[in-house]
């Protein structure tokens, strides 16, 4: 998965194409994009459905009731709160742990670089269910009850490599002589880092953190293995699906979606301003 940070400059890096338009391909692309968005539209729409029963899948009419009674299901609310706080903690911790790795990989040649690379690669390439199952095995053997903190621990573990790689990609485009220049101009290592490396790194760190947040809040598989009786939003939705997902879920999904839009939009604007 890629980070939601889209550098707008990407579009400008190339002279305008003079190739003939091919409407068929454009139409096709739009169709695929529509296909990708269809379930989201369904979700948003059914958040406004005036349904009386627990089963929310036939359109009954428009209502805002569910927005007003968003928090009427206490367990759902606490699941959402769990998801949000877990994602926040995970984003912070994984960024703190992953950024230095990305920095080291991007800037230094050192013994162990290869194995660090390998570790990052393995952690990303390992199937989620195996990661979840492995952690569960560890907790079973150690007799650790699963709950909120085991979820945090698990999420941080699978997020670290994503941050490292995002930061490293950012480092790779960075000219190391800049920092050397700062040092030569009399800056100490810390000052050079603060004034040169850090600002250059920040967009990478920010998108790494956002990526963690998104990965964590959406995770079902690893969470379901390690959550114990802590319930997160995706877990609640999955278990509610057997009796019918209440419209509040659609509303919360919509709000998370809109929140994501705003944050990603702000990020794009922010990096656009920086890029100019």
């Amino acid at each position, binding site marked *: 998965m890629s980070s939601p940070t889209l550098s707008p400059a990407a579009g400008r890096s190339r002279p305008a194409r003079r190739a003939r338009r091919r409407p068929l391909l454009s139409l096709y692309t739009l169709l695929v994009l529509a296909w990708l968005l269809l379930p989201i539209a369904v979700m948003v729409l059914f958040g406004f459905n005036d349904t009386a029963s627990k089963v929310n899948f036939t359109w009954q009419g428009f209502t805002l009731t569910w927005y007003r009674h968003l928090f009427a299901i206490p367990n759902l609310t606490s699941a959402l709160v769990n998801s949000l706080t877990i994602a926040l903690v995970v984003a912070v911790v994984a960024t703190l742990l992953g950024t230095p790795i990305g920095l080291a990989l991007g800037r230094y040649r050192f013994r162990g670089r*290869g194995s660090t*690379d390998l570790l990052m690669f393995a952690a990303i390439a390992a199937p989620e269910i195996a990661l979840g199952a492995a952690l569960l095995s560890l*907790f079973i053997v150690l007799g650790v009850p699963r709950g909120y903190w085991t979820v945090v621990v698990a999420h941080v573990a699978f997020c670290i490599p994503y941050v490292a790689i995002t930061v490293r990609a*950012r480092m790779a*485009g960075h000219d190391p002589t800049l920092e050397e220049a700062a040092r030569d101009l009399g800056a100490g290592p810390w000052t050079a880092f603060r004034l040169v490396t850090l600002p250059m790194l920040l967009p990478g760190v920010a998108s790494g953190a956002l990526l963690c947040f998104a990965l964590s809040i959406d995770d079902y598989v690893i969470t379901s293995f390690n959550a114990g*009786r802590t319930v997160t939003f995706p877990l609640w939705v999955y278990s509610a699906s057997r009796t019918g997902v209440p419209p509040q879920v659609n509303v919360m999904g919509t709000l998370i979606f809109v929140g994501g839009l705003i944050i990603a939009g702000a990020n794009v604007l922010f990096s656009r301003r920086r890029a100019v």
Partner: protein
Amino acid sequence: MPQYSTPFVPRPRTLPPAGPSRRGLLRAAFGAAALAPLAACSVPGARVHVPTGQAEIARAVSGFWAGRKRSGKLDFVNYTQYIDVDPADQSRHPTLAAFTRESGIEVTYSELIDDSASWFGKIQPEFASGQGIGYDLMVVGGDSYLTKYIQLGYLAPLDHSRLPHFARYGGAAFKNSSFDPGNVYTVPWQSGMTGIGYDPALVGRKITSWQDLLDPRLRGRVGMWNDAVQMGNVALLAVGVDPETSTPADWRKAAAWLRRQRDAGMVRSYSTATYQSSLQRGDLAASLVYSGDVFQANQSGSKLEFVIPDEGGLLWTDNLCIPSTAAHPVDALTYMDYAYRPEVAARISETVQFVCPVPDAQRIVARDAAAATGRRRSVLDALSTSPLVFPTTSDEAKLRHLRVLDEEEEKQWNALFEPIYQA
């Protein structure tokens, strides 16, 4: 998307030249030494001695309850949507509020249980680590997991001297079950029947027998479950065996019946997660269902029918029990007894619409119906006369109980029935 191109970074050569170096060997030795304890880690078992016989049980009861006092708090955990709610505000539960008003016990109520298996998996480590699970009262299905709880000593033996309402109002059909003879650890919370739910418009005739689920006209439109306990017991009924007294030979016959159904392409999907919505949408014509599912679906506009097939249906029971680690067991016991007052049981039934273990509640529901108006009245009227909630004696005669399995039997059972829905 970074807009710069990445200079090619050659893979650094970190490995020493070929051949094991001294350092390499040392490292390997270190590694192995560090890993050895990991490999040796085992998962301890926790079987305890389960008291048997009147005297021993009585000792266990007095041992557990001696010196316990009411504390004014109660943490109650339940399956989802399994207690009464205030129609105006779904987060309120009138019977719990009334209980607090009357007894002064504050109730923290949560609905976190999806099914026995996953719940057991979730709380077992907390039991095993010896700390409390944070609940004083929980609802546990009457299946092999309940047996596990008992064998592991996770449940408190109940002091029946403090459960007068259970003794007086608890329906005879619900007492003294095979998984907990004498109700030493549990009392029923709600019961339910497993039978066939179908849409008469799609099926085009009456369904009366389990064999109807082999009817070629329903090919590809039958819903079954990915639940070994229910599937196995249902199939035993289908082959004409009472599950409670069934033998492994009968199980094989039952599994063969399910396999025949499967191989004939009858089944659309084996899923406890989707059968309800699929049945209501018409994606399924007939499905294995719980009695309450059909009643609830019909309340929201469906026209489904529930049938207890001629060969028999299953009567299962979800039970209230008190974890042995409970911090407020006396309060839990107080609530247990409270739940057996007919008027309380009636209120709960009016919402959850499963089989009520308190027969006297029927009278109260009928009275409430008479007093209600409009839509609510029709719901309550339907409820008070519904054989799905208060089974008739002829229905009761057709109902059978789940087979209780020990560890070894459960392995055999799962090995027979799981492959059918996990093909």
